[in-house]
């Protein structure tokens, strides 16, 4: 189970952190060349925190509440490192990569849901 849950959480964390990152004016401007609208900022933040919470529950449900939090923090850290590097070297790719990560995390989640 672990590799699947971790893969799902890495994707989910990446999408969540990218959303939070794009809700910040500086990074939004780096990626889209314009300031973020207030409504978009709120949506991005709601999605970001929501996805982080969701990933915590996924980790806890499948890995138990002892391993879950450890894995959740590990996935968040790993995803954040990837995001910062991408943002620094290829800011244009951040938004598509976040969408791809979100889509990619659906597959392991689907497998887990079917198996459960």
């Amino acid at each position, binding site marked *: 189970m672990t590799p699947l849950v971790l*893969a799902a959480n890495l994707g989910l964390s990446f999408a969540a952190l990218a959303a939070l990152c794009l809700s910040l004016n500086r990074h939004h401007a780096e990626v889209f060349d314009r300031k973020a609208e207030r409504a978009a900022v709120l949506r991005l933040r709601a999605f970001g925190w929501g996805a982080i919470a969701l990933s915590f529950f996924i980790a806890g449900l499948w890995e138990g509440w002892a391993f879950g939090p*450890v894995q959740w923090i590990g996935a968040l850290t790993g995803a954040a490192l990837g995001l910062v*590097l991408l*943002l620094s070297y290829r800011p244009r790719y951040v938004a598509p990569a976040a969408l791809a990560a979100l889509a990619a995390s659906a597959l392991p989640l689907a497998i887990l849901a079917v198996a459960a």
Partner: protein
Amino acid sequence: MKGSFRQSMAWLHTWSGLIVGWVLFSIFVTGTASYYRPDISRWMRPEFTRVEPVEAPALGAAAERAVAYLGTHAAQARTWFIGLPQPDKPVLDLFWRTRPGAPPGHVLLDPRTGTESSVRDTQGGDFLYRFHFELHMPPLWGRWVVGICAMIMLVALISGIVTHKRIFADFFTFRRGKAPRRSWLDAHNVTGVLALPFHLMITYTGIITLATFYMPWGVTAAYKGNAQAFFTEASWITTPRPPAKQAAPLAPIGPMVEQARAARSEPLERLMIVNPGDANATVVAVFEEPHGLSHEHPQIAFDGVSGAILEVRDGGLKPAAKTFTVMTGLHEGHFAGTMLRLLFFLCGIMGCAMIATGVVLWSLARLPKAGERPFLGLRLVQALNVGSIAGLPAAVAVYFLANRLLPVDLAGREEWEIRAFFGAWIVAALVPLARPQRRAWCEGLAAVSVLCLAVVAADILTIPDHPLRRAGGDPLFAWFDGAMLLLAGLFALAARKVLRYEAPKKAHKNEHERDRAAKPAPVPAAAQPARRPEPTHA
């Protein structure tokens, strides 16, 4: 140390980080490598890949051979330790202590014949692992030094969090290609903040693993000086039995091993035979940890003469003891599978990077202005930076290289590998003293890259079982060489960056001014170090 709370904390962060930075860097590098200790050990004993693993039912007979060997070669010893064959170490690993102070005995045996194993003499990953908490010093001294450094690290972490005002605003910010102090500060912040849960956890639990060593007084007071009683209650050991001072033969050990194997599903890891040959001899069978966060080895104690079970220790810990074992378990990360282990490893690398960027920042913040001469302390710090950040990885690469290149039958081979490690490190630390700063960085980083490539070359040339030379060879060698190639590439990139680096044009300065005008945060703008004599960061 004056001014606001934050300025005081910045001062504390700067100096606490600097004084222990280099030692901490070596602790972090060797600790991070220790997440792959079994793999490194296996790579360093390539002969093992040809040995068939021992099946569990044959363990009893293997243990008998170990006892027979110890009976003839270590009859006077007070305790025998028998490491049973494991998938990653398919030999009997014997270790015995005769009396405190005397050098312990150590030998590897072939579990099928009971003769000495022909594997090359090396400490393998255990050297890096022990260096991580003993620095290759006498254990008591080493542990104290590491403990003090870890405690100061905790101070540096907390004061760093207070100093870093814009944790959330700058959470994802890494501005490359700006003034060097800005980029390095960003790198320091990003590696520190993103892996902060790991840094806090690993530093705190690191101190906790040796807490009763650093602060034994609680145990002394509560158990009236009887530390053994505490160890027993915490399930670290089974109840100790003093020798009866009466000779009695040791019962056959095979049936005890069988009994132990039948009692638990975890694999047997080692046997400990206390007071062999005495009427009160005790045989303790130690199992591998059950899967869980907590670091606890189940143990079964047998009476060495009758072979009857005396005591079974497995789980059922009280909350305090459980807290301790969970903290130790978190620190060691034995529970982590491939992916999670990789994440732990990445976090460790980020810790190394955080410390490295931190000590470099200290020297960048104190660069002399045009026309001034660098002061002696700065030169020393700059040289030590190169000597540790490039020097230690170079030394580790030389350690691996020595493992492949030293003659297999060299007497004292194990010590020669370690001498090669320290020799390389000393050279790498002394050369930068005599070289211009930038040249020293470039040469040091390039040397690490070349050494890593040399490890790969030596591995392919000396190992006939290498997958590149023989189809179906052990993939471990390919993985290890892949990691070495990756490191070689990273260090080569870094060397190239130092070589090609040009200070950013003045245009950046205006950008910084605008940045500052928009957000009047007291972060020192890197483009104007001259205006602020005592920077809050770095």
